[in-house]
């Protein structure tokens, strides 16, 4: 996705990244709870240049019926990118990548959602990427947690997500599109800060054991920043305009 610039300097001599950030600085993050009228819960996130809308329905009847489980509710997640969300128009049909991301996000959310309270029902999470710029799965997961909370679905914790990675031999927080393309490693992390549990973890790229540890730490640090913004989004919606 996106053109590659051969002359791009990922990290300059002052430790400033190609988009002007410091190594441990996330992009601008804005999360809004609610917004959709028909969905039971919803959220909108802007994470750098990513723009993602999430809508949640449920708990509701399961269609097709054979998918339902008499012991517990089920969670279904669809991650989908709009044709206009990336530089080259994307075919609207779900790609293998989107199917995989849907699955990892679902598995990242399942530990947080108390599905056992709603046997034979489904909770559907629909994620629509309006504009993508690296790190969509983390932004989507963070927004999905807020949308689930907005829908009033009982949860053990919210999942906050942020990526860490390596570019120009340095561990960096919140990998952007350029750094993902030209960098050395990308590690998306989903984390429940109150329960201190990692629910999503992927990595592509090569890291030494020390870098690996630093990378996870950096990612979790990012998740905690996101977590505060998730809570703020919900407080803003339910307790007035940011007075709290």
């Amino acid at each position, binding site marked *: 996705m996106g053109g590659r610039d051969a002359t791009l300097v990922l990290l300059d001599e002052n430790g400033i990244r190609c988009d002007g950030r410091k190594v441990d600085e996330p992009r601008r993050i804005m999360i809004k709870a609610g917004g*959709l009228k028909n969905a039971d819960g919803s959220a909108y996130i802007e994470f750098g240049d990513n723009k993602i809308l999430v809508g949640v329905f449920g708990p509701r009847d399961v269609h097709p019926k054979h998918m339902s489980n008499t012991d517990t509710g089920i969670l279904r997640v669809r991650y989908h990118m709009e044709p206009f969300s990336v*530089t080259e128009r994307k075919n609207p049909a779900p790609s293998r990548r989107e199917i995989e991301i849907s699955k990892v996000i679902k598995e990242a959310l399942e530990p947080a959602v108390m599905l056992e309270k709603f046997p034979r029902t489904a909770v559907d999470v629909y994620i629509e990427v309006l504009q993508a710029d690296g790190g969509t799965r983390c932004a989507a997961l963070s927004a999905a947690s807020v949308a689930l909370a907005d829908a009033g679905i009982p949860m053990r914790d919210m999942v906050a997500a942020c990526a860490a990675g390596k570019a120009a031999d340095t561990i960096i927080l919140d990998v952007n599109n350029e750094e993902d393309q030209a960098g050395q490693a990308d590690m998306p992390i989903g984390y429940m800060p109150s329960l201190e549990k990692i629910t999503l973890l992927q990595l592509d790229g090569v890291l030494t054991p020390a870098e690996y540890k630093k990378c996870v730490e950096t990612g979790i640090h990012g998740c905690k920043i996101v977590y505060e913004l998730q809570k703020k989004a919900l407080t803003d919606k339910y307790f007035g305009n940011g007075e709290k």
Partner: protein
Amino acid sequence: MASTSVIDELKKSQILELLEQGKRVDGRTLDEPRKLIIEINAIPKANGSARVRLGDTEVICGVKIQPDRPFPDMGDKGIFICTAELLPFSHPSVETGPPGPDVIELARVVDRGIRESHMIDLTQLVIQKNKSVVGVFADNVVVDYDGNLFDACAYAATAAILTAKTPKWEMKDDVPTLVEGGESHVPTTTIPVSVTMGKIGNYIVVDPNGDEWASMDARITITTDSNGNICALQKGGNGGFTFDEVIKCGELSVKVGSKVREMLKQAKERGQ
């Protein structure tokens, strides 16, 4: 279209009762469309984009422009394709998967309105005749549903096209190559405006909302161009229209359409 969940028969009779007194459920007059809000450049990564709210119906359209092979019988014309899709969170009844007949109709009607008005001057979008042309793709996604997706999608697509900038390509070694700094507006000739009317009992209402949409016997979507000519029409639903009604709808579409066109013009100016 997201065929609204089972509507209360009570609601339906209430809608009809009100119409008999010349009123509508949301307080509008019969020929009054809902409040239209057009936000342009909602998706900066697209070549053109618009987010449109028509009452509580919300649509985002992104325009992507890229080189493509021409259709075999139209080597001297660029390509225009318009699609529409209902996002699964737009209504509880929407399911993922391939689009059903309603959604396919929606996409085709919106596409036809713009195509038949010759809004985009496709003859200016040729890179090399019979070999390479510019393709303009307008993809609509419905974010929230409250009836009348036809007009909401059409306005979103039109606003996105009016404000879209196309890059420039030249043939180099048989490949279309981007020319730096060659951006220009998409060449347009007219502003098509679609107006959808529903027939409930013997009443014609402009821009039916979700409840009216679920109650109506038939609908008609008419697209007019800047000259006030009708350039596309689609009737739907299992009821019928009388001749007089069809004529009246034509007049309504010109009258209502001209007001909407002013808003689209303003959106275009904001995008200059």
